[in-house]
């Protein structure tokens, strides 16, 4: 008994050393902010083709690094085009599979009744307003928030107001909903989540300040199930797929 277990253990260690996970038929790496529509599409796709689909959610930087490290991935869906562009350059994804899916629109979320009376982007730098943004290095929304503030030339001023740089997007929602901050820069689709309902209000960011991102999808060069991967890649960009994106608050790209 003991001996056999040891042999199994050694075998497991060697196999995992070659980074062969025990995965389903299809492995998707997706930005964490896309979880709601992604879960619905995953279930639909799995049912239609009678396959298992595993989705690994992480910040865009994290899943990008995972692909870079050679972790098994069939389809990559990060939170911004920059990642697929870099991945094409490095030969990690197949160039002509890159498809623009939906728009990611940042906006300002404020607690119910808007205690600090935030009406627009520049109110974020008014003294005394407590602001939360994502960590500029981790979730895509953090980097976008800093970019917008820099573009408007008020980053320095804004840092005085920023009380927290949250490593995850979900923290931003909690802090706004619990009135721990007066405003947070967040993706528009996130505030349509049922969790936030009734707890927060939305203030649009004026056009001249806003930076709108596009969510892309692409099939990985090393995909082990290319055929299925192509099908999934097309499915999430199909009319049916786009209607699910819309349902969860994402705006489809104009074709």
């Amino acid at each position: 008994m003991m001996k056999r277990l040891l042999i199994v253990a050694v075998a497991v260690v060697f196999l995992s050393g070659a980074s062969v996970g025990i995965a389903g038929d299809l492995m998707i790496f997706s930005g964490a902010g896309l979880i709601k529509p992604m879960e619905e599409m995953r279930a639909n796709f799995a049912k239609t083709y009678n396959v298992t689909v595993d989705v690994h959610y992480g910040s865009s930087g994290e899943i990008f690094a995972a692909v870079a490290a050679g972790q098994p991935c069939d389809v990559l869906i990060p939170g911004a085009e920059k990642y697929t562009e870099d991945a094409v350059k490095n030969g990690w994804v197949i160039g002509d599979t890159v498809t623009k899916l939906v728009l990611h629109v940042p906006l300002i979320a404020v607690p119910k009744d808007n205690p600090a009376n935030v009406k627009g982007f520049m109110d974020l730098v008014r003294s005394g307003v407590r602001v939360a943004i994502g960590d500029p290095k981790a979730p895509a929304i953090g980097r976008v928030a800093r970019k917008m503030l820099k573009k408007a030339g008020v980053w320095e001023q804004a840092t005085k107001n920023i009380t927290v740089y949250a490593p995850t997007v979900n923290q931003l929602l909690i802090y706004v909903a619990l009135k721990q901050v007066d405003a947070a820069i967040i993706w528009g689709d996130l505030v349509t989540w049922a969790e936030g309902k009734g707890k927060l209000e939305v203030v649009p960011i004026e056009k001249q300040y806003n930076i709108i991102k596009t969510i892309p999808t692409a099939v990985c060069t090393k995909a082990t199930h290319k055929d299925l991967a192509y099908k999934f890649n097309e499915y999430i960009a199909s009319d049916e797929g786009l209607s699910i994106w819309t349902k969860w608050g994402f705006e489809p790209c104009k074709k």
Partner: protein
Amino acid sequence: MTFFITLLLVLAIGSLFVVPTLEDIRQNIWNAEMRYSLKLSLGTGLISTILVMFFALPIGYALSRFHFWGKGFVKTIIDMPIAFPELVLGLCLLLLFGNTPVGKLLSALGLTFVFTKKGIVAAQFFTALPYAIRIMKSTFDYINPRIEFVSRSLGYSMAETFKNISLPLAKNGILASTVISFARCIGTFGTVLILAGGSFMKTEILPITLYLNISYGNMGMALTSGIVLMVVSFIAIFIFEKTEVGL
């Protein structure tokens, strides 16, 4: 079976040390972010541990020696944070210290816990306290109360007995409890993330550094903080084993 699990654990721990190169570790350990987070971790961990022990000693003693109304309830509540996830504890503390009368009162006293370094200490305190109390209680359970009775009958007051008899007898337990609390404080992640925010170079402690760098895709740095954390807990467990106190 025992060997199998031990082998797997050894391999898992070993891989943390094998994967990064030495050069990587050396560079990462001296970079500004790591030094900041290490310093903050040790500082907050130390303060939290002192606070934890300050409360755990009398509470552990009371739970071991006295029978009072509602003792079962008190024990359950105090033990609860051991069982539920750190994230939940963090959320509870955030709610409590947020826009409630309690939070406002504490803020007025200069104790703002949300998004601050004080918040790190608070998070660590509540995470580690139940462990410390448990160890202290079982330590006092093992000390024969008759020794204390004898001390009382020979003229020591209750406080004097505690100070001169019970405390010295509980020395090993106190050491063990302190060490475990410190390790627990240093390793607290979820509670700190929610209550103190986990902001880069602001409320960044070692486990946050690990997590942040995973999301930055900077594996070298993440692994290095993992190693530092591992070394701290290894030393803690080693001392704990030396003191030979059962939980």
